[in-house]
């Protein structure tokens, strides 16, 4: 056996090839001890001088950690990879007392620890009305029909096999529950951005434009101006969607999410994507689309997802998620370690299109600076903004204010409440404030 060690570019041979024929024979004869001894000696020679020098610097540098000095794990130990064990704190969480049963509840996305704009699928917020189901894709069907035979030439049924053969689109969009930040309409109620804004996620979705399917069935756009989407779960969630949005090509039936299939909690194997519109319309486990000439006033558009105004009227069919933003780092429930430089980072989004600008204030909205927007900025997608800040150790109030391509400027709590009061539950897009005190603790406050 030759010595391979000084042949650059060669793969290291398997361990037995390091040994001479004699050595291999010795090991075969049961004399493994010489091997063990030589490894021990080598280890001691390395560790001893380093430990002695610990006072000369960072022990994490001077004493090589085990991951530098041992063999790591082989491939496919986790056939489906999982986050590091050090990341266990950032998980979806419920807000205690918000709902009474887990099957009709919400879990919030840990925005305080996420980067960029894509939500890892396992952290996507959940909102279920009758529990979630893991639907068998081989038995799932999408039916398209009309309230009246005149609205659609040919009611059709599609299998997943068929839907996945059709021309597809992949687009990044945010999804926000209409009740996101709803706990905060009257006053500060919850401590962290996970609970104030965590009914928000953003994914790349892949699927087939609904327009393509409706046209494949021979829809009559003149007569059918409304679309009903319906789920296959126990709640068979239904929501009315305007045909204008379908015709624009924006609405699609999605099976893909962030490169893989949708997660069961997010509607596997098929959900509707209605960009810019509140999450409840993105019907999960989508089984049926009906075209009609009037809205349906379903339970989730006639009993819930209606916005109570100060005059006692409820606004019905409020669907667009208006322009909004929030600073995620630093945010409520976090503590700054020391004065000095911080990269203040957050998210902005608008159901009316692209984000044009985000301004950040460190004095509660008296003065503002324009933040850096991380591009490319996408239509009806989360948009990451960043701005440098040197914290001088004194109290501060951090705010962000987004402006979308229509020129709409995210409002203050004072402005919003003046028009909509405090009991709306839905569609709170007010400017969020985080107060920093000398200790570095950041808390949720509302600035009028």
């Amino acid at each position, binding site marked *: 056996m030759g010595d391979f060690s000084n042949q650059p570019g060669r793969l290291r041979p398997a361990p037995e090839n390091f040994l001479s024929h004699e050595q291999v024979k010795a090991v075969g004869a049961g004399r493994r001890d010489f091997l063990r001894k030589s490894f021990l000696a080598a280890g001691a020679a390395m560790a001893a001088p380093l430990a002695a020098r610990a006072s000369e610097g960072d022990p994490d540098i001077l004493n090589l950690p085990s991951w530098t000095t041992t063999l790591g794990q082989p491939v496919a130990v986790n056939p489906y990879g999982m986050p590091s064990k*050090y990341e266990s*704190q950032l998980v979806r969480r419920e*807000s205690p007392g918000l709902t*009474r049963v887990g099957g009709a509840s919400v879990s919030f996305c*840990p925005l305080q*620890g996420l980067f960029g704009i894509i939500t890892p699928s396992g952290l996507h917020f959940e909102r279920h009305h*009758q529990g979630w189901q893991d639907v068998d894709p081989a038995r799932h069907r999408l*039916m*398209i*029909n009309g*309230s009246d035979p005149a609205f659609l*030439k040919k*009611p*059709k*049924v*599609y299998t997943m096999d*068929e839907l996945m053969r059709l021309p597809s689109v992949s687009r990044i969009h945010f999804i926000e529950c209409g009740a996101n930040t709803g706990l905060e309409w009257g*006053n*500060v109620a*919850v*401590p*962290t951005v996970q*609970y104030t804004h965590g009914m928000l996620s953003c994914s790349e979705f892949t699927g087939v434009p609904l327009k393509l399917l409706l046209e*494949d*069935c*021979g829809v009559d756009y003149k007569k059918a*101006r409304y679309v009903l989407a*319906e789920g296959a779960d*126990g709640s*068979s969630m239904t929501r009315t969607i*305007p045909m*204008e949005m379908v015709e624009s090509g924006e609405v699609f039936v999605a099976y893909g999410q962030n490169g893989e299939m949708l997660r069961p909690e997010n509607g596997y194997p098929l959900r509707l994507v209605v960009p810019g519109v509140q999450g409840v319309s993105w019907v999960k486990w989508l089984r049926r689309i*009906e075209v009609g000439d*009037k809205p*349906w006033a379903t339970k989730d558009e006639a009993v819930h997802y209606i916005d*109570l105004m100060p005059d*006692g*009227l*409820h606004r*019905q*069919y*409020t669907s*667009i998620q208006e322009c909004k933003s929030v600073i995620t780092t630093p945010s*409520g*429930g*976090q*503590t700054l*370690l020391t004065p000095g430089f911080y990269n203040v980072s957050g998210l902005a989004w608008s159901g009316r299109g692209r984000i044009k*600008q985000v*301004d950040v204030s460190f004095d*509660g909205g*008296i*003065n*503002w600076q324009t933040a850096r927007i991380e591009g490319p900025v996408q239509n009806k997608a989360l948009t990451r903004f960043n701005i440098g800040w040197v914290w001088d150790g004194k109290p501060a109030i951090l705010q962000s204010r987004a*402006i979308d391509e229509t020129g709409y400027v995210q409002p203050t709590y004072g*402005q919003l409440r003046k*028009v909509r009061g405090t009991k709306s539950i839905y569609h709170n897009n007010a400017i969020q404030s985080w107060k920093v005190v000398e200790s570095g603790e*950041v808390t949720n*406050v*509302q600035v009028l």
Partner: protein
Amino acid sequence: MSRFSKSVLVLALAAASSTAFAFDNYKGIGRDAKPAEVAAWDIDVRPDFKGLPKGSGNVERGQELFEEKCASCHGSFGESNEVFTPLIGGTTAEDIKNGRVGGFVKGDIPQRTTFTKVATISTVWDYIYRAMPWTAPKSLKPDDVYAILAYFLNLAEIVPGDFTLSDRNIAEVQAKMPNRNGMTTDHGMWPGAPAKKGGIGNGGIPDVKNVACMKNCKPEALIGSTLPEYARTAHGELADQNRSFGPVRGTRTLGPEAAKKAADASTLDLATKSGCMACHGMKNKIVGPGYNEIVARYQGQPDAEARLVAKVKAGGQGTWGSVPMPPNAHVKDEDVVTLVKWILNGSK
């Protein structure tokens, strides 16, 4: 004519006809929905009662059905707040007359119930038929739904006790719904055509207007509301809801005592999920010894933890009697260690 040019001709004809788009154009994809299939799934009912199945049911039958299938979650009178917000309550004879719920008009409504909010009776019919009872959706017959809804209407004092609701008189009941005039679509948050073009709302004009002032925008920052103390701790240990490294740390909201309690509660959860609590009590023998007995026996024995971890994994008998503990192979190694540590530390 070749097949190819024939299909081109068909396409050309289609394009020339009134439909400007491709109809039935993806060869081999999708098939006709059969009438029975459409009937099986298309169960929606609109406010104008399009889609409403024929049928009827009276208050008395409704009360029986409700008691049997619904009251466990919603209370006998639909009043319960245990599982979901109340269905009935908060409406008056005056409201039935006006079609506006006074509690909303005056702004003093104590509790928003389903019947205070809903304007359209079709909504309730549709929803019960499609989704209730919660644990057995789509198990009701149309007549059952009419009966239960008749019972609701009687509870809300909209119809008398001898009333029978049917597809023929439901429109008359609609005219008495307490909040039937309580909705507005005059807003800018509908993403389709405006009302004046046959759609909904004002065409997207926002109701609130801010301007992007940059300098000296106001004399001071007035704080209107701060986090109440109870809310600071109501969501558990915030330190554990953030990374343990990075630019910031989660704020420690619970003291070490409370943090231990929370950790213990989660270990108890783990013990329950792992099946240990079926055989062990904290302070009592069930099939196996109580955790307090285990602590007493192994106190001061430094090797106890390792031995017990091995024992829990492999199972065994003879230390406490002849009843064996089965192997706990389904529990992850690190969880066994957590559980044994917790038991030896007093499992509070």
